[in-house]
């Protein structure tokens, strides 16, 4: 049984045309991972709908070293590699359904397509960040404000090699959500201590990354 309707596939295919360069999703999965099957099924379907989009499936339990290299700490977890097969520091933990399909599609187009660049003044600020910054954006699938926050976190990661950013689907990972005190989403944590709750302007995200 497919989780995608024909209409979904048509929409996705149209959308995925924006990916112009080879782009690879590396998925780390394991049995009993929350919505692991659905995640794999969706990503496989997406890879089938685009010549430029590729999927590599790994076993989370046995390929720990690679998972660690990409910062994948839970399954299903997946990262995006660019056309040179370089890790883009863009990561997802949990199923990208509901509104979160938009976070994934945005990241793919940002990496494999042509989009407007970040305004110069912002880019300069982001590039100056010279310490490691880890960003986690906790989301729910029914939250319309969440993809905006994920997109901003990922944009920071794409602009500076010191920054990594991930979406975390909060409902599937209650322990992690509890650890960071997630009670409203989008809930974005910078280096485990600085927090933005809500989808605020990009400059607020830059400021938190600077002070984290």
């Amino acid at each position: 049984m497919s989780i995608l309707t024909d209409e979904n596939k048509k929409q996705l295919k149209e959308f995925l045309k924006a990916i112009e360069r080879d782009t690879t999703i590396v998925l780390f999965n394991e049995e009993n991972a929350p919505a692991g099957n659905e995640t794999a099924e969706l990503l496989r379907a997406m890879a089938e709908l685009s010549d430029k989009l590729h999927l590599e499936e790994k076993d989370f339990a046995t390929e720990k070293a690679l998972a660690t290299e990409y910062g994948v700490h839970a399954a299903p977890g997946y990262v995006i590699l660019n056309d040179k097969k370089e890790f883009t520091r863009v990561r997802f933990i949990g199923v990208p359904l509901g509104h979160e399909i938009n976070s994934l599609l945005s990241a793919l187009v940002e990496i494999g397509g042509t989009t407007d660049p970040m305004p110069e003044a912002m880019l300069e600020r982001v590039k100056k960040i010279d310490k490691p910054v880890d960003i986690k954006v906790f989301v729910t699938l029914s939250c319309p404000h969440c993809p905006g926050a994920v997109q901003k976190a990922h944009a920071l990661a794409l602009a500076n090699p010191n920054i990594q950013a991930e979406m975390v689907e909060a409902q599937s990972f209650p322990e992690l959500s509890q650890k960071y005190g997630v009670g409203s989403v989008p809930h974005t944590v910078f280096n485990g201590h600085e927090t933005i709750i809500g989808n605020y302007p990009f400059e607020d995200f830059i400021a938190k990354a600077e002070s984290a």
Partner: protein
Amino acid sequence: MLDLHLNLTPEKPAPSMFTGPVAPDENVVYDLLVIGAGPAGLNAALYAKRKGRNVAVFGDRVGGQMLNTSMVENYIGTSQNSGYELSQKFGNDIEALGIPILSGYLIDGWQQEEDDVIKLYATNRKQYRGKTVLLATGSTPRKLGIPGEIELADRGVSYCAICDGPLFKQKRLIVAGGGNAAAEAALDLARIGREVTVVQRSEFRADHILMAELEKLDNVTLLTQTQIERINGEEHVENIEVYDKVRGERYVIEADAVFVEIGHDPNLGPFKMDLEVNDNGEIIVDQCNRTNIPGVFAAGDVTETMYKQIVIAAADGAQAALSINNELTTGESRMQTAAHKERNC
């Protein structure tokens, strides 16, 4: 088990946060600058554009409060749309007309320039000029204003049921309020939580069709004439203290989360100091949507319109755009502000 209703709603192609609709031009004096991208603002932009007016929209979130609604079932002709889908459709119509939108930033200052031009300052540090301004800035969720609410915000106290509901699966949930928004939140939450208690300080005023749905649900309790006095909890919400006004009794309801749906407060932004408002802080406008500030109009939830509904806000936006068009055409009534209560737009 995970709730895996596939709600695949891709946005339009080219989703870069730095792409999207055309941005407004700093070097143009627009006929109309619309602040707010909810139903009132977007419909005003559509009407003004169709009248041949040069219009730009400034909105933090396209769709505004519609985004916080799971299903919109009372906008005629568009049943079975989620608030998100309807927001997308509104936004698409504006984009198709080539109307520039600045999103993701706020307007944080304004100034009256010479030659009847109003200048807006945006948080992207740019300035935009217009002959008229429409405030369609809507409102933000009203707080209960009780002990524990701010302390436990984002730790069980929530103002967005569709966003935060999934975090409280099989938990005991409270909805504060008795209007449509509260009833809709309770219906959504009843599918997620173990039990849902709707607490209303007076009587319910939600649509009959919603109340009938709620009354059918085994895990929903409806309390009227009951005031929430305090939200308690150490790390998270643990319980609420309520006062039953009929029995004159105080008691405690154990709860893991409180969803506040008691209405909204108008967003006046940088115009706050200069606008005439009513006791609720809503902008006073005349029948032509004029405020007391020459050249500045207002429409939708930010004004004193009696009922805050998508269709009413949209209609109010259209009316404002037509008044503005008329004022720009005739070049008069510049000084006729709300204080004059002119009937002729």
